[in-house]
């Protein structure tokens, strides 16, 4: 299976692990991820206003590029997925926005949201299949109590994201089951960590993040997995009292597939 792949700005810098283990695991699962040529940053938050056009152009360029390649577009960072999928929805359903963007970009063929945007987790669920994934696991995470942290951007707004039930999601828990772990269900798994406010007000973000960490820990979590670099940062920064480690879900995937060490060797300088 071949997919176009949009890594995004953070996966090239502070969240290299999220990207590295995803690529290695995809390869092990027989999937080719072709990074889009000359992609631009999506902007990390979806522009909610009806009259925001320029801020959506980078997402549209990525979507058009995937269409040109004839591939579905795989995203991995929660923020990129949220922005690109919502902009794609605008291109399908908002005539005013789609009209202005097509007028501005003036492509040979107008773009109206034809590209299928799939999160890496959805690829594992719908393209690979969690049952097939389970068969490829060589180091099952047996007995490990793992809490999935969805945060806000993977699930909401559910009418557009259509990944899972926004109040009672199962996709990450089923992923954890597929790699042999024991998912921990806790009430704060789809509540916000504080997001971008971290830059301006650490204290506010601290309060939210500690609630998430405490909720996971109180329900027996030994670790928390996420798909979002900002969630990882916010939870990690506020983990002084709660020692539960927070890691990317792709790292666990690589571990279960028995290839995590290869990545470490690849990146070690000695």
């Amino acid at each position, binding site marked *: 299976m071949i997919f176009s792949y949009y890594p995004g700005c953070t996966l090239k810098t502070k969240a290299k692990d999220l990207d590295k283990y995803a690529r290695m695991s995809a390869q092990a699962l027989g999937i080719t991820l072709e990074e889009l040529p000359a992609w631009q940053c999506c902007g990390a938050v979806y522009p909610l206003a009806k009259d925001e056009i320029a801020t959506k152009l980078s997402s549209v360029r990525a979507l058009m590029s995937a269409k040109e390649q004839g591939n579905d577009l795989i995203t991995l960072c929660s*923020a990129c997925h949220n922005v690109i999928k919502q902009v794609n929805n605008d291109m399908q359903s908002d005539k005013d926005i789609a009209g202005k963007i097509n007028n501005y970009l003036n492509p040979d063929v107008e773009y109206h949201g034809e590209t299928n945007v799939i999160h890496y987790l959805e690829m594992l669920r719908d393209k690979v299949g969690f049952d097939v994934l389970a068969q490829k696991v060589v180091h099952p995470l047996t007995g490990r109590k793992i809490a999935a942290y969805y945060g806000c951007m993977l699930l909401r707004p559910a009418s557009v994201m259509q990944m899972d039930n926004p109040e009672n999601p199962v996709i990450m828990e089923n992923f954890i089951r597929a790699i042999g772990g024991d998912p921990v269900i806790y009430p704060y798994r789809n509540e916000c960590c504080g997001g971008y406010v971290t830059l301006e007000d650490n204290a506010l973000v601290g309060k939210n993040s500690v609630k998430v960490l405490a909720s996971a820990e109180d329900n027996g979590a030994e670790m928390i997995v996420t798909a979002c670099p900002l969630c990882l940062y916010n939870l990690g*920064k506020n983990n002084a009292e709660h020692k539960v480690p927070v890691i990317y879900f792709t790292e666990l995937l690589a571990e279960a597939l028995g290839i995590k060490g290869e990545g470490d060797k690849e990146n070690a300088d000695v």
Partner: protein
Amino acid sequence: MQTFKKNLTEQVLRTSGVNVRKCMRCGKCSGSCPSYEEMDYHPHQFVYMVEKGDVDALMKSNYRCLSCMACVERCPRGVAPAKLIEAIRLMVVRQQGQNHLKADQIPALLDKDIPQQAIVSAFRKYSK
């Protein structure tokens, strides 16, 4: 002054695309909001404030919203309070010199682990 306020309100409604008159005052938005306690005006209040045309107070206090979309998801009437906050912020930062976050403030706010995503999104939320 009355006309000015009316224009501000119309601009918020147009930019957000929100129909505030659909609100049935159930308060689910405020009940869902993780920043409720931090706000001068809570989500159910600012929907009503926009309906009344009382937008200028909101223009002075609107930076506690996390844009987590909990209120958007859980509103039984599809009112989307978060979109009102976004429109109100834009009305402020689209004015010359009114950016909430300026580029030269950023270096002092960084640490070695902060992901690019935080900087990009804060800039998008706070500046034009």
